[in-house]
């Protein structure tokens, strides 16, 4: 009897515990239908993406539009994005199938493992422009005498560390007018060891001598510019055409900075070689960005007579006035844009940039004070570049 009772109670408790614990069913199938990650694997990701990491997108749970950011130039006609889905889920069209995304987004439908949940996703590609800031540095540390040993020439440092020949000065012209008797240090454009940092540029307005005077070019302002000096034009009537300002430039210049010292010469001479006591010389510091082709598609270079006035100019950064100072004085000039830059044109070398330093602001028309001196160092051009 006792046994029966224990048996009974045991059975009762057993039923109860079994009902609680021992009747778990098979695991239900997944009911979620998510694209958890989208990826685009291509042979040459650099052609498509700015960053390799842009090829993989971790998709947020409440996000159904998945957008890949690609280069403006990306070819979207045949791309095969792949997806990581919720376990057991399926996607239609298939992960890895090829689609033309150039006509717009493509819609994918994900179905959960249990078949009951469906989610519709839109995969899109967005062409984005991407700018990086780059600073061009000009420290005027690399100079040497020209091949004939008469005057100095400078080299800029290129991004790869090699030396370029982007700087030009009027020294070759000065050599033609007076230079045979002048030492390299007596030229208008010379280096100076006492820069803001290392060596600097020293521009001095010089007398050109008899030959220059006879050609109605009595003075030569010390100058330095990005561009070329065309010696063939230096001593003829088209002297203004000797300075070919600007080199093709593929970045958008934003800011132009550096340090200078300025000391005007004692007597300001007008073009007729008369002293004008009412005028004091000033230096000039500016940078110009311009379209290097005209409306008809002809290549254009700006010269001394139109570098600040051409219709093709799109941006100018110019110092308002060089102060007379014996201390290194910083200048920081924003490029003033007259029109929006055409980024495609920019990328295709359709713009040219020049930087110009002159010891006499009217040097191009041969006015100024002999002995005016502009020292320049540590020049920077801050740019934005679309990758």
């Amino acid at each position: 009897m006792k046994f029966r009772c224990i048996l009974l109670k045991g059975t009762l408790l057993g039923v109860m515990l079994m009902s609680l614990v021992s009747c778990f069913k098979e695991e239900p199938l997944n009911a979620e239908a998510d694209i958890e990650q989208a990826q685009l694997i291509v042979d040459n990701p650099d052609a498509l993406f700015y960053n390799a990491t842009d090829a993989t997108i971790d998709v947020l749970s409440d996000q159904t539009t998945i957008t890949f950011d690609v280069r403006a130039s990306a070819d979207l006609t045949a791309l095969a994005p792949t997806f990581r889905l919720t376990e057991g889920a399926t996607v239609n069209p298939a992960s890895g199938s090829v689609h033309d995304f150039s006509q717009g987004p493509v819609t994918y439908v994900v179905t959960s493992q249990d078949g009951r949940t469906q989610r519709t996703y839109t995969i899109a590609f967005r062409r984005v422009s991407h700018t990086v800031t780059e600073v061009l540095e000009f420290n005027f540390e690399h100079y040497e005498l020209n091949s004939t040993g008469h005057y100095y020439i400078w080299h800029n440092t290129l991004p790869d560390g090699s030396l370029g020949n982007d700087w030009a000065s009027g020294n070759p012209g000065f050599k033609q007018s007076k230079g045979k008797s002048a030492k390299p240090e007596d030229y208008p454009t010379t280096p100076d060891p006492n820069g803001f940092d290392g060596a600097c540029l020293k521009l001095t307005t010089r007398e050109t001598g008899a030959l220059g005077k006879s050609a109605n070019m009595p003075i030569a302002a010390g100058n330095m510019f990005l561009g070329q000096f065309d010696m063939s034009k230096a001593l003829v009537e088209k002297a203004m055409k000797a300075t070919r300002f600007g080199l093709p430039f593929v970045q958008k210049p934003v800011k132009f900075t550096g340090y200078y010292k300025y000391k005007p010469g004692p007597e300001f001479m007008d073009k007729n070689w008369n002293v004008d006591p009412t005028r004091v010389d000033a230096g000039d510091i500016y940078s110009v960005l311009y379209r290097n082709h005209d409306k008809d598609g002809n290549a254009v270079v700006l010269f001394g007579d139109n570098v600040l006035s051409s219709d093709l100019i799109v941006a100018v950064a110019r110092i308002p006035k060089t102060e007379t100072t014996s201390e290194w004085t910083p200048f920081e000039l924003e490029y003033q844009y007259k029109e929006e830059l055409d980024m495609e044109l920019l990328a295709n070398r359709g713009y040219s940039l020049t930087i110009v330093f002159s010891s006499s602001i009217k040097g191009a028309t041969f006015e100024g004070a002999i002995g005016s001196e502009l020292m320049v160092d540590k020049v920077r051009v801050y740019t934005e570049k679309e990758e």
Partner: protein
Amino acid sequence: MKRLYILLATATIALTAMAQTTLLNDMSFYWRIGYAVGGNAPLPMPATIRSLNKYVLQPNMSIGVDAHRRIGNHWGILAGIRFENKGMHIDADVKNYHMEIKKEGDALAGYFRGKVDTRITQWMFTVPLQATFRVNKVNFKLGPYVSILTAKKFSGYAYDGYLRVDDYTGAKIELGNDKDSRGEFDFSDDMRDMQCGIDLGADWQFSNHFGLYADLQWGISGTFKKDFKTIEQTLRPIYGIVGISYRIN
């Protein structure tokens, strides 16, 4: 509790007095004290509940008095009143499990995958009415019961998982395992105040006064009110009680 003691004492005195009258010669009165083990469980167990990680015994005391009247040699009828707690504390793994949690004051309903820690407290007065059938010293009992709840709590937290808000395509809310990152819930206000069910049991009177008893109380009504939909399955209170009885007369 104080009220309970007064009530039970009064009942005992009354029943003792009644038992002594000749009219109630065929009646016996019992004290009972027992302990309940069980749970408020969905039956059958849904697939959304994957496993039970933890089951913690609760202070599920049951105390009460019964009156039993014999009718013939074997049959009888039993009625009584109990004051008891049916509590439960479990920790379970769930998948695709519909829940509603409170997060920074917002109620978020949806489907949860992870772990759920649930605690239930149900203090109640229970009145059983059972037919009895005696075989030797054992009385088998079967009949309905009605319970009135005096204190109720259904709370806990979902943790170590994620909730898909509203439906499976909703935002994924990750839940961790500390006070800030888990999702608390409290459905106490949605619990029924009255429960009823079937009580199947047996009393074994092994001595003149003392006996052992076991009851299985199988709830017919669910734990929650009809309009409560957060937990999709009906949770029936199913508790087994074992204890000692004392025959007063």
